[in-house]
């Protein structure tokens, strides 16, 4: 239930597919989070690299965590270029009750931002510039830089 796409996401189609996939599952709450590229700092868009093996294992661990609460998580993300006002990210929680769903979507999106192996670049004046200042070092980073 991790979906990777080249370029921008078709948000209405994905939200519809996910809703219909779980229409018979007896979940009372469905909370998608949709992330859209904002116009700021003169960018033309964003671009993404994804390292799929670690993204998959990270996502699998979250599915387990959700399952313990009777919930499931779905996620879609773009690779490559996504232009202004297009969307690059959807995460969604389905759960029996709203409390768990609201809590999980918050925790999931926070950890996604801090841990998912995805790199963001600004598209600006024809260049692809790594967004270092908006990026987060994964927990445990820096061990190879320690001088003996």
């Amino acid at each position, binding site marked *: 239930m991790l979906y990777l796409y080249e370029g921008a996401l078709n948000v209405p189609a994905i939200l519809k597919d996910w809703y219909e996939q779980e229409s018979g599952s007896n979940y009372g709450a469905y909370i998608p989070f949709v992330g859209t590229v904002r116009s700021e700092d003169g960018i033309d868009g964003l671009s993404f*690299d994804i390292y799929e093996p670690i993204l998959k294992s990270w996502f699998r661990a979250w599915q387990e965590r959700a399952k313990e609460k009777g919930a499931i998580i779905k996620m879609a993300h773009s690779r490559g270029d996504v232009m202004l006002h297009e969307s690059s990210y959807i995460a969604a929680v389905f759960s029996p009750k709203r409390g768990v769903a609201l809590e999980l979507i918050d925790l999931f999106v926070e950890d996604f931002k801090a841990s998912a192996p995805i790199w963001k670049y600004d598209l600006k004046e024809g260049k692809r510039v*790594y967004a*270092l200042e908006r990026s987060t070092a994964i927990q445990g980073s820096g061990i*190879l830089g320690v001088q003996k």
Partner: protein
Amino acid sequence: MVRVEFLGPIQKEPLELDITNLSQLAVILQKDSELAQWLQNSAVAVNDTLVASLNHVLKNGDKVSLLPPVCGG
């Protein structure tokens, strides 16, 4: 041999090294001045599992990946 890959924005080709732990890798990579900033802020995975200690033993065929700061979404 151990394969070392540099992910995302680190513009560097993979290396094939004859090493048996991450401490040896640190010594080798610290000689490359272009990598200095990345060694400070990158996480390390062995065979696609993040590791937190330089004592991690490496064996023939292992893959080490460097993951610089992330920003999905």
